[in-house]
């Protein structure tokens, strides 16, 4: 069983890595077309993506604005809802949490269509701030979950101890609740950051072609054939994901966040 498991995991990760490896290898091509294995390997494409080609640098900048804005906004909205849910457990807080997770639960194209109409009426269609809000709403479910997990891990006895020693709710919040939930909050922020970075269909509908993020720019270029610069974008995004999730694994408890059993190590 053990050897079978190991072999199977190896095979699965091989298939999982295959398209990624091909894309990464193609980024090293010096010519205008994608070959694998790369012909005449070079790192010139990296310069094009980050510095010299305005199409890509603008797209990268837009992606960063949307992802950073959306992750901060999503956490700012998810925190009070998760806190209300945990501290009061009222019907209203449950409804809010449920509705807040709704956009993430339905096929994304439907929410994209809805937001497309919504921004057309409110004047946000094609504006980058509308893209930020759209992603924050779409991905709010993630920090809602991670922060709730964090809050549940707080021992209520600590709060009672703080209360008996005369701490008000605000003081207890600052000294007990906040420090223990910071890793979970940051994890939630990171999840939104990475997923927003890579999200395609919702931003496709709300951008209305007036600006392009990197994923949109790649999709637009799909019809004209691939260039190695697009592969550089893929590498960049993959690197960001690996760094972010490694950070979560290093400073947070990734298996716990993913719902692993706590009793076994």
């Amino acid at each position, binding site marked *: 069983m053990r050897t079978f498991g190991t072999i199977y995991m190896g095979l699965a990760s091989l298939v999982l890595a295959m398209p*990624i490896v091909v894309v990464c290898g193609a980024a090293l091509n010096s010519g205008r077309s994608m070959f694998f294995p790369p012909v005449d390997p070079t790192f010139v494409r990296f310069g094009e993506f980050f510095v010299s080609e305005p199409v890509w640098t603008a797209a990268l900048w837009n992606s960063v604005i949307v992802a950073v804005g959306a992750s901060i906004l999503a956490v700012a909205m998810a925190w009070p809802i998760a806190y209300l849910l945990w501290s009061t457990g009222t019907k209203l807080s449950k409804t809010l949490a449920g509705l807040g997770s709704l956009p993430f639960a339905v*096929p994304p194209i439907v929410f994209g269509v*809805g937001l497309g*109409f919504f921004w057309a009426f409110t004047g946000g269609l094609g504006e980058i701030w509308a893209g930020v809000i759209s992603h924050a709403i779409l991905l709010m479910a993630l920090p809602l979950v991670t922060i709730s997990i964090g809050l549940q891990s707080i021992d209520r006895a600590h709060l009672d101890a703080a209360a008996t020693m005369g701490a008000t709710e605000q003081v207890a919040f600052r000294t007990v609740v906040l420090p223990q939930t910071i890793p979970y909050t940051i994890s939630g922020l990171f999840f939104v950051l990475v997923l927003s970075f*890579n999200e395609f269909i919702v931003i496709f509908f709300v951008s209305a072609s007036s600006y392009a993020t990197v994923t949109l720019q790649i999709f637009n270029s799909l019809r004209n054939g691939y260039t190695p610069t697009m592969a550089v974008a893929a590498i960049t995004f*993959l690197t960001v994901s690996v760094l972010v999730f490694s950070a979560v694994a290093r400073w947070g408890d990734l298996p716990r966040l993913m719902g692993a059993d706590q009793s076994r190590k």
Partner: protein
Amino acid sequence: MTVANDISLPDRVQSANKTSTFPAKSVLLGFLTSAIVVFCVFPFLLVLAISFGRKVDGAAWVWDFTLENYQRFFVGVLWPQEVTFLYLQQLYYSFYFAVIASLLAVVTALPFTLALTRLSRRAQAIWLVFILSSLSLSEVFIVMGWDILLSNNSGLPKLFKETGLTAWLKEVGWFQTLRDWGLANPRNVKFKTSDFATILTMSYLVWPYAVILLYPALSRLDPSLGEAARTMGASRWTVTRTVTLPSIRLPLMGTTLLLFVFLLGTYVSITVFAAPNKHTTAVAIYANIRGANLNAPFGATQAIILLISASVCLYLGHLLNRRAEGR
């Protein structure tokens, strides 16, 4: 949790409500509620309202209350003189691709996740970083990778030809079978466009999700149950069939349904890998709202039907779960 904790909890909440922060709290609550309603609920209502609207020739569309769009979806514009099931067929292909791809993903992810949960905590964390990174990788990058791998001038077909695999396939006669399946042209194997490539990419797309969704349930599996059955003489396969699988039946079904709903809206993989006559509702929605057709009300109708299909599936899954738990 002790009894004392339970008693002290309501006190704490009440005292918080009586303090001076009360107005600030209700202002925040009001703001949150309105924000959620405006952004999470209103867009869906808007789609529903527009789905009853009417397209004006040579212009955009106007508000209305007509069922024409729904009629068009199910039986075509010219009904009852003429009937077309084109749009139902698109919905059928949405289901077809999503069902097969989600099942394939869950079936192949299950042994992987089982093996993953048996590793040490540290090894699990490293694997999870890998899985999460590939999970978050954008659909456009994944499609790009598979497109290079499956395209005729590079990737697998070229590999087949150069290694002599194509010639060998022709020799043993399997090449004709591949041609019958639409996976080969007279000269060499081809994977674009084909159902095979579409389902492979879609399945790949949700595979990491399958691992992440199965992970909590599988990591809570008690290994001693299986070991007990083994010591009593059950074979490995019998243990899997009678102990492991029944205890994870619910998460398995739940995961499959979630992946299925997610895949119903797949857009990029379908446009790149599926044959044009097998394009799905998601592609049609795009064509109506942003693309060539410019018929927003009909696009909205298709979105609503997709949403209803997804909700029905989720609800059925929920019912199944309840029934399984009740027994």
